[in-house]
């Protein structure tokens, strides 16, 4: 009965997860971006994605008559999703380089840029030579980091990698890293908006180049043509200049909210209420669905693990071994970015996240479920079998109820781990609580206050989950 219900439920949830978003007659594209990249793309105080690139994209799409879904994530993931055909285009401050031209087709350049090298505001470092033996923060997969790396041998510094711009800035601002490399307009905007850093080469940017919109090589020609035509038009009629002026000329408060909004915990909570609630909801949604489905999958693996048939036991052991051995983030990247590259079937990030959690948490669950069944005294099975009960009936009526009772504390523990593990899915761009925190910090640079808020929200969630589990446990043992 439980099994039937479980499979039915799983099927419904999976169907719902797979259901494609219905599109209109206009061409519809999926475009990836990096939302920690002000002034080009970032989240404003109303949780909207704004910036030079976002306004440009909007203007071009309107003019060219197409619609799109904008997917914010780390630059690295954003670029990979386009290169393997999961997304149609990327607009994320992507410098046009010869290496990237092997993989992508670029639009006409939309912004001239170059690489700055940056230190803490009151740093004693005067020249690149001073970086010898120091740590330099770089963002994975960016042209600025390539430039930084090209100087590594000459100046003898160590390198530390980050996935988003803001964490990287803060690492330098608090003194963990001595310097960083970043695109000139991006760092200048950040400094203007209060980031306590200084640019060491404002007049000699390294590797001067340009940003371009990119699609997978030889694919999506229509989109690229539309972008180029639209971009030429908005450049000609002055829309482009207005957009650039709007972001570079504006004060911080325009997009990030007032000082009061950003420099008190209450202000941050109030001005980011919407974003925090939706991030919290996404985390809860991921957790609840993953807990239910991973438990069903885990119990199935556990039952298989005590099967009478050796090959079924072997299958269970192998599945548990593989998915317990893979780091959650590797599994998430493999499912979200790796698999579609092979099969050509797109997987929505939410589905990929849920599948990741089911496989990983399910493997841990399977291991303790099997252990719980094995912990039931052998004599119980012998007594049941001696009465003539077949193996399956003996398992269901005698072994499983006792085993499940033994496992209750392990289940509660696994639920809490699942809740915490949802944060790792921020890596594939899921806008759950952790990713929400990253975006807010990217805008207001209030690392301490924002992460304290996020941490407390997690603790509250975990406390509630623990209470709920204990309550269920008491109900069960009272029966």
């Amino acid at each position, binding site marked *: 009965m439980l099994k039937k219900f479980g499979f039915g439920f799983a099927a419904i949830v999976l169907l719902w997860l797979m259901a494609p978003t219905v599109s209109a007659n206009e061409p519809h594209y999926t475009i990836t971006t990096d939302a920690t990249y002000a002034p080009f793309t970032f989240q404003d105080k109303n949780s909207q994605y704004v910036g030079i690139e976002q306004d440009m994209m909007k203007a071009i799409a309107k003019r060219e008559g197409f619609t799109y879904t904008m997917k914010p994530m780390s630059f690295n993931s954003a670029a990979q999703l386009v290169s393997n055909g999961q997304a149609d285009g990327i607009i994320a401050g992507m410098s046009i380089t010869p290496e990237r031209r092997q993989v992508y087709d670029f639009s006409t350049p939309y912004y001239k840029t170059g690489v700055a090298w940056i230190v803490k505001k009151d740093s004693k470092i005067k020249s690149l030579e001073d970086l010898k033996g120091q740590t330099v923060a770089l963002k994975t997969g960016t042209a600025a980091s390539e430039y930084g790396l090209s100087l590594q041998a000459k100046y003898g510094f160590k390198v530390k990698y980050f996935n988003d711009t803001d964490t990287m800035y803060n690492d330098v601002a608090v003194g963990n890293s001595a310097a960083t490399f970043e695109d000139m307009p991006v760092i200048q905007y950040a400094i203007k908006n209060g980031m306590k850093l200084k640019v060491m080469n404002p007049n000699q940017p390294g590797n001067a180049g340009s940003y371009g919109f990119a699609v997978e090589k030889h694919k999506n020609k229509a989109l690229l043509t539309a972008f180029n035509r639209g971009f030429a038009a908005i450049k000609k009629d002055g829309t482009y200049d207005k957009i650039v002026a709007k972001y570079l000329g504006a004060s911080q408060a325009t997009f990030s909210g007032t000082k009061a909004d950003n420099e008190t915990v209450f202000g941050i909570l109030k001005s980011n209420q919407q974003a925090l609630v939706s991030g919290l909801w996404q985390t809860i949604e991921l957790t609840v669905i993953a807990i239910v489905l991973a438990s069903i999958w885990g119990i199935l693996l556990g039952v298989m693990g005590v099967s009478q048939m050796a090959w079924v036991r072997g299958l269970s052991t192998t599945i548990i071994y593989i998915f317990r051995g893979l780091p959650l983030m590797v599994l998430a990247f493999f499912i979200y970015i790796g698999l579609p590259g092979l099969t050509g079937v797109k997987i929505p990030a939410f589905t990929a996240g849920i599948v990741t959690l089911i496989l990983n948490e399910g493997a841990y669950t399977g291991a303790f479920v099997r252990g719980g069944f094995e912990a039931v005294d052998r*004599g119980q099975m*012998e*007594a*049941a079998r*001696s*009465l*003539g*009960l077949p193996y399956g009936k003996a398992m269901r009526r005698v072994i499983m109820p006792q085993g499940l009772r033994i496992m209750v504390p392990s289940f509660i523990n696994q639920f809490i781990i699942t809740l915490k593990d949802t944060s790792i899915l921020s890596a594939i761009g899921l806008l759950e609580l952790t990713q929400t925190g990253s975006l807010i910090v990217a805008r207001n640079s209030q690392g301490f206050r924002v992460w304290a808020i996020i941490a407390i929200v997690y603790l509250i969630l975990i406390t509630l989950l623990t209470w709920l589990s204990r309550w269920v446990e008491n109900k069960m043992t009272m029966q």
Partner: protein
Amino acid sequence: MSDAQTKVKVHVENVNKSYGDNHVLRDISLDVSENEVVVMIGPSGSGKSTFLRMLNQLETPDNGTIVVDGFDISDKATDINKVRENIGMVFQNFNLFNNYTVLENIMLAPVELGKLDKAAAEKKARELLATVGLSDKADVSVNSLSGGQKQRIAIARALAMSPDVMLFDEPTSALDPEMVGDVLNVMKNLADSGMTMIIVTHEMGFAKQVADRVVFFESGKIQESGTPEAVFNTPKNARLQEFLSKVMHA
């Protein structure tokens, strides 16, 4: 025994069993007739429990033939679950189902296997509880019972399936001495009612009193068997003599 034709209930022929190098049963052959009570005695590790557990296939023999109730259980094609429905077993450690009450323990198998409907199974369970003298314990959790009570419930649970043969694997070995009598009484009544019983025990007094035949196991072999008088009063086998001298004067 009545003058009805003697019917063989359990037929064992040339059974061997080894665990690695340890040859625990060597060419065992034994027939048990309907209504007969056979008690198996012998030192620990002599193979008597292993032998008993083969009769309902909790252990499988390496070779040889075992026929119970007319079913050849050494044949893989035999549905062992069907055969087990007619063979009750009582364990040293009771093995009552911890997740059920006393009544539910007794009702589980008949209801699950479709032998009785719920009402009939409950009626029968209450009758059996009365037989073993534990009517007042019907609705308690099995963990609240003493060892002697647990073992009497275990006997009732086995009897709920109306078996033709009952196997007892050292049913009193895990009991406090003052509990042993109650359990043996239940077993004696069962023997008197004509149940075919095969019992592994160290209770020599009980064996003398109840057994139709006593079988002495040693080193994986049946060394001697016969009536209780013959085995206990005039043992011929040297090892049996030695065993008896130890247990009778302990």
